[in-house]
């Protein structure tokens, strides 16, 4: 036993503990602590893995289409025959026809090829749609588009919202007033209606202002529309947090040291709201995928023949009596993706927010 130090500081406490247990106390950063909490949350980690797997599958859509299914997302095989379990089956059969014997026109619904589950050498694994396109290929390509829109708009939306919230929170006064009214303005519309109005207005001629050229039918239209309409969802709560941080002493100290506004915004204020922004980012990805589905379902998002999970549901609905899987499968893909992102976002919030422990145990 060592002689206890007369001035008992944290350093000497670490020394004492080291001598007693022969292990030293290591300072842990908040990031490490959060990571440790997250690492123990198996449900959240599992859903992150699910999400990454879904993204990877959709990213590999071209490989799957060319190597396994031997088709593209928009290639039509309606009149072809596919060998399923050694039997030839028509991709799209039925339909109205002229009976040569009686010379009468027989009205009949079409019947499309159902899921073949790998019994056709990887072709039409999930069946065909009414035009004879491979549903599995379209599902993956559609997922790629949906995820591009979901993640891309989450990035753009968070970026704009964070910058606006920093400006409003740092400068306060007039800047805050203008930015808050801007949030109020977007907030004053039903989200989906504003998105539809913007989406259809942009579909007419595309967008050709400020040196940006977007053609009608481009994926950028739903992507930008969704990022625009969801800015206040992140911007408002962040602005509130930054406004209260702005009053803290460390900001005053930075101002006193002569730090520039940019420096205070990005190296003093931003790190303090980074965890909130990160949680919002994951949750808004989930939200954006849902918004894209709604927008595309109504025809104001991704334009056919370009697939997305929303357009697949819309086109599947027309065939729901003969081929219900066409509408059901893309919905399941959406639920899985959104659910995994929501669970992970919740886990991330619990890990980053020290109050999380209190919340679960009460």
């Amino acid at each position, binding site marked *: 036993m060592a002689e206890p130090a007369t001035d008992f500081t944290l350093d000497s406490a670490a020394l004492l503990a080291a001598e007693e247990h022969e292990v030293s106390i290591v300072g842990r950063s908040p990031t490490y602590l959060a990571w440790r909490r997250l690492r123990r949350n198996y449900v959240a980690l599992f859903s992150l893995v699910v999400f990454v797997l879904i993204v990877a599958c959709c990213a590999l859509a071209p490989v799957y289409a060319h190597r396994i299914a031997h088709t593209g997302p928009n290639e039509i095989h309606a009149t072809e025959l596919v060998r399923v379990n050694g039997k030839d089956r028509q991709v799209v059969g039925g339909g109205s026809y002229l009976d040569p014997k009686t010379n009468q026109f027989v009205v009949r619904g079409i019947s499309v090829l159902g899921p073949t589950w790998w019994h056709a050498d990887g072709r039409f694994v999930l069946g065909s749609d009414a035009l004879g396109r491979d549903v599995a290929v379209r599902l993956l390509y559609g997922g790629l588009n949906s995820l591009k829109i979901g993640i891309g708009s989450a990035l753009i939306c968070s970026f704009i919202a964070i910058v606006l919230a920093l400006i409003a929170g740092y400068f306060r006064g007039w800047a805050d007033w203008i930015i808050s*009214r801007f949030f*109020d*303005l977007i*907030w*004053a*519309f*039903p*989200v*989906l*209606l*504003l998105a*539809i*109005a*913007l989406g*259809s*207005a*942009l*579909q*007419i*001629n*595309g*967008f*050709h*202002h400020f040196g940006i050229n977007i053609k009608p039918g481009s994926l950028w239209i739903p992507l930008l529309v969704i990022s625009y309409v969801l800015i206040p969802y992140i911007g408002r709560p962040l602005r509130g947090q930054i406004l209260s941080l702005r009053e803290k002493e460390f900001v005053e100290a930075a101002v006193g040291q002569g730090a520039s506004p940019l420096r205070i915004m990005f190296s003093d204020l931003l790190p303090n709201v980074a965890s909130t922004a990160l949680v919002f980012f994951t949750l808004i990805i*989930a939200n954006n995928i*849902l918004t894209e*589905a*709604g927008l595309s*379902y*109504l*025809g*104001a998002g991704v334009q056919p023949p370009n697939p997305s*999970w*929303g357009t697949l*549901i*819309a086109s*599947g*609905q027309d065939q*729901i*009596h003969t081929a*219900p899987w066409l*509408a*059901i499968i*893309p*919905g399941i893909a*959406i*639920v899985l993706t*959104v*659910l995994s992102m*929501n*669970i992970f976002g*919740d886990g991330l919030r619990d890990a980053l927010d020290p*109050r999380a422990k*209190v*919340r*679960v*145990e*009460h």
Partner: protein
Amino acid sequence: MAPFVIRRLIGMVAVLFGVSVLVYVVFILVPGGDPAQRMAGKNPLPANILNIRKKWGFDKPFYVQYVRMMQKAGNGLIGKHGEYDILTSFQNRQNVVHEIKRGIPATFSLCIGAGFIWLLFGVLVGFFSAVTAGRWSDRLITTFALIGVSMPVAWLAVVLRYFLAEQPKKPIFPDGEYVPLTADPVQWAFHLLLPWFCLSVLFIGFYGRVLRSNMLDAMNEEYVRTAKAKGLTRRRVLLRHVLRNSLIPIVSLFGLDFAAVLGGGAILTETVFDLKGVGWYAAQSVGDLDLPPIMGVTLYGSFFIVVFSALVDFMYAFLDPRIRPT
């Protein structure tokens, strides 16, 4: 309280002005090209284009165009319609205000019923999962709530309609069709059950999650500890102290969500179930890129949200004295 109300009303007018400017931008500027040509429809006469350009002032600065657009919208509201109006459909020259009015009964029936359901069940879900936090019942409820907020409304509606209303043999529910309340109240409710459920699911999950975390936060507050220490029963503490305080944010959420669905935000449910309401009307015009109906419904919806959010703020100030001075 009076200065607060006056300031809030001025803010409301400012936001409505902003809304009208944004509508001008979306309606005239965003589509690009010559607006007059767009309005004249397919294969227009050159004289007609010139006429529209002159009437709308497309050769004049933007503020003149804005004022003229608002004049036309005002005329449309009181029923005086010009031929090329912001409130007249480009496709079939229908009067947008008239069509929205026709959609209101269906939309209100859908939204008021669904609003009751989602508020009631949302509060129940949140309350029970918070009271039993950590136990299996809480896990079950929160899992369901999470699935509820992760479902695309359109898909849920399509699937439910297919399995419950469109099966050829003995469908459980009637398929679509709005029966007016005045015609047959029982059939009215029966026809609306599925749409009510679809519209409510997302909100029930969302409100349940918000209320649960609010209640768990409130349970750690000192006033709750004081109430327990005074020897109040658990029931009284939970209902009078925890739940009551946690419901305040729900009030504002409900006000805004309810306004949004009344204003056409239930567009997906209405479209899938063929309920000929306000949202359905807007959705019909998306395919033709017919802007006036979409803009008309958007304006109508934002009017509801702006008015309701002012009402919510007044109610908030009434319920929670701490908010009043701001």
